[in-house]
């Protein structure tokens, strides 16, 4: 059976699944329940300096639903812990003592001044926690006070605060990054330069989930007004995967460990984050939606998949897909495919036709009897028909072999790899010499 034990920058856990810093890790009661359920670790909900902050007293969450009220995304306007620092520290110490094999990382957010970090770091260290995570990500509320995303959006602040922390604690420092920036590599490089042991990402995406069209208030509505919140859950996973991959394949940060976060709901999501370079993964929305018991599916699924693929340990999975993430300009332009519709599987809904005819390349025709067929002369292999077909594997992409003629271009498919950098239409093309 695959070994799920994880050693992430010296922080050990029985599996790579940590609960992210959020309401599920707000206090001893929840965290103990999580550990009993089997979670590998937690990032304790962000601590700040006293006097502790207060939260709104109305709704904190907004939601986006898919079919059957399936939660696709949640946004929140909750702030960091609203309990006294001393209470949190006492509970952290107790839990770590009771559950020594689990990862206990403490999320921190204090003003962007060195004295503040010097004040809190020893107190956290005293609890016996395994590491700290610097919350440079929260996009709402705290950012208005010069913390959270307000730091994470300025690389030099990231570097500065990271350096303070490294100078004032022996604990590993994980820098949590906000996705509300233009290029994730810059904050990651700043964290690296400041001496961070790792980065974790993504934090939530600035968002308004919906507008109440009767009251004209954004949701969640507090007395008729709304404030942007932080979006998370399955809807943000593609954004998170890309950002993780960008850092993993960046020459400057390629060896910087990553704790992956963003919409992880099943073992498969987790495996994808691991493959793109995450050494551990953090989960929140799925636990908030379904409860802590999902850990059984996550661990069993990951373990079974690793057994099936012959991966003995988490290390063997981490980063395995990174070499295959490349720039567009290096994609092989001699790789030619055509859509193929399996007529036995086709249920004749015509969605492929509507999509292709109205919005793509007019490459599907309707023959008598609602028979939908691809017109090779027009098909650019965009994949939209595959994406909108309700029947899995009914439409597939056939790879043309070298020597075949692409009926759209009339050209013979070449077997050599060739990309944009050498394409004659590229004004900057270099001759392949």
């Amino acid at each position, binding site marked *: 059976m695959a070994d799920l034990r994880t050693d992430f920058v010296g922080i050990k856990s029985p599996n790579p699944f940590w609960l992210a810093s959020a309401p599920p890790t707000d206090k001893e009661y929840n965290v103990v329940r999580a550990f009993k359920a089997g979670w590998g670790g937690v990032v304790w909900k962000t601590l700040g300096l006293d006097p502790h902050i207060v939260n709104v007293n109305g709704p904190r969450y907004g939601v986006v639903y898919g079919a059957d009220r399936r939660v696709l995304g949640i946004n929140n306007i909750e702030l960091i812990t609203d309990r006294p620092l001393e209470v949190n520290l006492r509970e952290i110490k107790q839990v770590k003592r009771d559950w020594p094999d689990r990862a206990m990382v403490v999320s921190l957010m204090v003003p962007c001044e060195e004295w503040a970090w010097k004040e809190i770091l020893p107190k956290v260290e005293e609890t016996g926690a395994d590491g700290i995570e610097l919350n440079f990500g929260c996009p709402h509320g705290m950012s208005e006070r010069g913390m959270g995303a307000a730091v994470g959006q300025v690389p030099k602040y990231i570097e500065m605060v990271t350096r303070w922390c490294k100078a004032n604690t022996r604990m590993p420092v994980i820098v949590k990054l906000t996705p509300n920036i233009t290029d994730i590599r810059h904050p990651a490089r700043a964290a690296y330069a400041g001496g961070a042991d790792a980065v974790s990402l993504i934090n939530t995406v600035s968002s308004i989930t919906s507008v109440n069209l009767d009251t004209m208030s954004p949701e969640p509505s507090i007395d008729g007004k709304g404030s942007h919140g932080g979006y998370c859950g399955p809807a943000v996973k593609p954004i998170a995967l890309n950002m993780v991959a960008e850092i993993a394949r960046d020459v400057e940060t390629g060896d910087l460990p990553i704790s992956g976060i963003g919409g992880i709901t099943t073992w498969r999501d987790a495996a994808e984050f691991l493959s793109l370079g995450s050494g551990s993964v953090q989960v929140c929305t799925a636990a908030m939606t379904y409860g802590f018991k999902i850990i059984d599916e996550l661990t069993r699924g990951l373990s079974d998949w690793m057994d099936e693929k012959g991966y003995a340990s988490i290390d063997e999975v981490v980063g395995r897909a990174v070499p295959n993430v490349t720039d567009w300009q290096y994609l092989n332009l001699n790789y030619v495919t055509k859509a193929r519709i399996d007529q036995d599987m086709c249920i004749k809904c015509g969605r492929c036709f509507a999509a292709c005819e109205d919005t793509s390349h007019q490459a599907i025709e309707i023959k008598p009897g609602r028979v939908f067929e691809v017109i090779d002369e027009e098909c650019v292999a965009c994949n939209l028909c595959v994406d909108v077909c*309700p029947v899995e594997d009914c439409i597939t992409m056939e790879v043309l072999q070298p020597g075949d003629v692409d009926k759209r271009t009339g050209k013979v498919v070449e077997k050599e790899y060739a990309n944009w950098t050498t394409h004659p239409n590229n004004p900057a093309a270099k001759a392949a010499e």
Partner: protein
Amino acid sequence: MTNSPMTPGIVPGRLPSEAYCENFADLHAPYDGHEAMVAADRCYFCYDAPCITACPTAIDIPLFIRQIQAGMPEAAAKTILEQNILGGMCARVCPTETLCEEACVREAAEGKPVEIGRLQRHATDSLMEAGVHPFERAAPTGKRVAVVGAGPAGLACAHRLSMHGHEVVVFDAKAKPGGLNEFGIASYKTVGGFAQAEVEWLLKIGGITIETGKALGDGLSLEDLKSEYDAVFLGIGLGGVNALSGEGVDKDGVGDAVEFIAALRQAKDVATLPVGRNVVVIGGGMTAVDAAVQSKLLGAENVTIVYRRGKDRMSASLFEQDLATSKGVKIVYHAQPVAVHGNGSAAEVEFEYTRDGSKSLEGTGETFRIPADQVLKAIGQTLDGAPEGLTLERGKIAVSETGRTSVEGVWAGGDCATGGDDLTVTAVAEGRDAAEDIHKSLSA
């Protein structure tokens, strides 16, 4: 009452009173809002959707389902009602399993179509509960049209004519409008007085007067109507029933399924309706199933449908046949009645087995008997009292595609006219299309 299913003869009150409520409740309970959203989400919004083609009134089904998905069931209802003003009733009584739902691509894909009928009911119920009538009349044209028959064809025709600004008078032989919607459909398909509620809702458009107790040959003549009105539409249905031949068919206890169903629909308390201990229904259509199932629900001990051909030839759909058998009705295929035996009242029906011969159905010579104190005939209805001068074709009023009869200024539709299946939805389509043609001819 001390009667039970085992009490001999034709008697009322065979069941405890609470059983009647349960037995005659809605066959398909309405969706609640969330169920409707989940059901609506299964629609693929097909290109040139086969369900639309399969609907005799060509409702834009993917559009109305998408409107339900988008949280606008009342707008969905308008999409339905634009094509089919009796969309509420059709949602309840259409054999969707042989129409839209049979054509649904998910039926082909997984044997589980989008539940179009129930979604249609969700939409139309939402609108009717809100008390909204979403159509307005055009400016008055000064033209007057007589509609004979306040069934689905007549009502659909009247509504469309009124929308175009014409004045309409609808005549009906019965004391209440609605036609077969009111008198001819199983109670569990349209509970809570829906048929009358729908007529009242339909009339909200205005410009339509209903005169009951008047029929052609009984207070009305086509000649008079033609001279008094600018156009006439006949939606008179099939008022007669086919006669059963054979020895003893006039014995007590032998009756028409149509009358049995009508009495059930009009009963204030179904417990007072007498039903046999052993009921035999002869026929293979929806009427046979409706009569048989309801006999069982009234407490008959044994109910048997006997049909002269095979299962596949039965005009009641497989769904209807399964419904009957699930309620405890036995269906005997390939048998035809020979005689009703009994001393004054029916006691047994004698049948002969049949087979498909080289040219037509033929008896095998082998006979059997089924105990029957009540025999219900459901072997088809016939056109009764069609005015003279109209060309008939295969026993129905001959009409063009737009419902024109052989007589200038007279249109016809629904069961009394040629074309289409004898379904509520077909009648609505024919009434509507005739109204459009009448409007065109009056505007010319």
